[in-house]
């Protein structure tokens, strides 16, 4: 009997030991269940999607919309001279589409006029006028010239020829014209603005990303003046000792000021502030760590890159690109890039004085503004 008691005690202890280990292991495994399940089930084992065909072009959305318009025409068997009509066809965003045909002005319903909101995609096959003081919540396509009234907001606009936006317009997503774009004063252009010929922004416009062979900023008062015949400039001899990181590049460990009317034949790097005097001609690229100031009438045949603010004086000629990590101020009469060699001006904040001109892309990450 004593033996039986000992055996049963031993068995009970063994059971308890097994139970202890089982509970301990279960607790650990419980927390590992998500990891083990994911290992086994592979619910998230695909490689990150790297889109080879990713189109970062400014015209991407406009081109995509244009393709949808073509598809719309094909799906509904529409010819360009067909009469207007409304469709409850399913656009991708499940909104109705109005095919305006050649009507010069859309025929809005009394409810729409009262609410001052149009929530239909508008497709016109000739030049069109959109009345002002309205909100156009969906895209607008126009085969000809598109003219709009003042104080109006648009989601997106596409015209095969010219676009003329009224004053104080707002474009939320993108705008593209096959010809030129003229934007009224005080307008706000979020997103993308592109034109195959030219863009002209009125005074006090705000913008984000613009691309065109010629972009003029408030040219009414001032236009870039033709620079006088360049005098022969003396080659710059630095007063302070500079590091030479290669045969074509000079590096200043501190701030650097280059006097007026000299020629610089190399690339220049300054660790802190860099200032070019008036009339300076620089053959290479420029980099400044803290701030970069370009004097009036300078000619820069390379790029300008700065970790801080870039201030470009009036009447400068710059090949580009112009890149700042803080902001760029472009003086009146400046010309950056040319239609034959367009370039990019890029910074979080860009302020452009009236009369300046850029060929290529102006990209303000946070805010772009045109002066008066």
């Amino acid at each position: 009997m004593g033996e039986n008691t000992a055996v049963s005690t031993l068995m009970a202890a063994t059971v308890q030991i097994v139970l202890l280990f089982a509970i301990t292991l279960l607790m650990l495994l419980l927390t590992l269940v998500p990891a083990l399940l994911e290992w086994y089930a592979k619910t998230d084992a695909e490689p990150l999607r790297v889109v080879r065909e990713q189109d970062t072009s400014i015209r991407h959305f406009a081109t995509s919309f244009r393709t949808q318009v073509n598809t719309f025409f094909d799906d509904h068997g529409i010819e360009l001279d067909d009469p207007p009509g409304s469709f409850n066809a399913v656009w991708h965003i499940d909104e109705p589409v109005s095919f305006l045909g050649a009507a010069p002005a859309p025929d809005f319903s009394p409810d729409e006029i009262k609410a001052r909101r149009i929530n239909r995609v508008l497709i016109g096959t000739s030049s069109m006028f959109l009345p002002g003081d309205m909100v156009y919540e969906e895209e607008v396509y126009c085969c000809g010239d598109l003219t709009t009234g003042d104080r109006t907001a648009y989601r997106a606009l596409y015209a095969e020829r010219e676009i003329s936006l009224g004053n104080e317009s707002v474009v939320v997503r993108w705008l593209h014209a096959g010809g030129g774009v003229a934007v009224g004063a005080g307008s706000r252009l979020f997103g993308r603005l592109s034109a195959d010929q030219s863009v002209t922004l009125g005074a006090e416009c705000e913008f984000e990303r613009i691309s065109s062979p010629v972009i003029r900023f408030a040219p009414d008062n001032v236009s870039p003046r033709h620079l006088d015949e360049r005098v022969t400039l003396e080659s710059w001899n630095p007063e302070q000792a500079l590091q030479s990181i290669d045969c074509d590049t000079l590096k200043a460990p501190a701030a650097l000021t280059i006097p007026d009317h000299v020629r610089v034949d190399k690339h220049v790097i300054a660790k802190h502030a860099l200032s070019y005097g008036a009339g300076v001609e620089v053959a290479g690229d420029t980099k400044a760590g803290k701030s970069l100031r370009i004097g009036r009438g300078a000619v820069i045949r390379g790029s300008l890159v700065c970790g801080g603010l870039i201030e470009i004086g009036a009447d400068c000629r710059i090949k580009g690109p112009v890149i700042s990590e803080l902001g760029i101020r472009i003086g009146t009469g400046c010309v950056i890039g040319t239609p034959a060699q367009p370039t990019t001006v890029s910074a979080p904040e860009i302020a452009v004085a009236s009369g300046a001109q850029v060929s290529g892309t102006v990209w303000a990450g946070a805010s772009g503004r045109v002066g008066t």
Partner: protein
Amino acid sequence: MRWRYRGHTGRLIRRHRALRSLDVQTSSIMHPLGLTIVALALVLYSRNVITQAWADIIAFWCDSTGIDVTVSMRQTPVGRIFSYSVPELRLASPLPGAEALALSFAIVIAAMLIAYLCLRRFLPLAYLVWAIGVIHLCAITLFYFSPTAFPYTIGGHVSGSLEVTLMLLMIVPLILMVAYYPLNFSLAKKVALTLFILLMVFLFAPHLYACHIVVMSFHSVLYMPILFAVFGALPIMVMIIAIYGWGMSWEQQRQ
């Protein structure tokens, strides 16, 4: 905003992952500070309750498994104003005999050989087996040549390990302060994750060390070094990281 960031197919356009970052919001700072302070305060305030519960759990399992142990609480001062109590265990710490040493040696060598021959396909497991083998061989060597030089008792091992676990409980809020609280999870999720980690560590640790007691009581303190090095803080850390990883996979709040 929705009007602006909705694509023409109706979906919201998200920033590319390469350019993404998190906005600095009030919660980015208040959550880490507030939750850390609250969680730390919770652990500090209930530290003696925690350690008493650990003592009770260990005492229960020792009693259930027939191990003769006396459990009391020992106050450990830290400076002049702070102190914490730790379970103090008194129980036999059997030394390994010659047979146990020989058997253990043979098993370790066999395991390392098998790891080398059969487990090369899964190399990490082989490395782990070898690491355990090396540590255990050191222990075998020590006990073979100088068994009385081994400085620890089972009670001391468990007390020390529980002290370390208490420190880990205090470190968990600090880890989450930088690794989880600033992120875009709801406050409820952050609280839930914190409590779940603390609860699991609180429950797991005494059971783990009860297992240590069982192993060493029924065999010998020969196994103490590998229990300390590999089967002590490591499973607890695995648990913390596993729960943290699970928490990171929860759905975020959209910015």
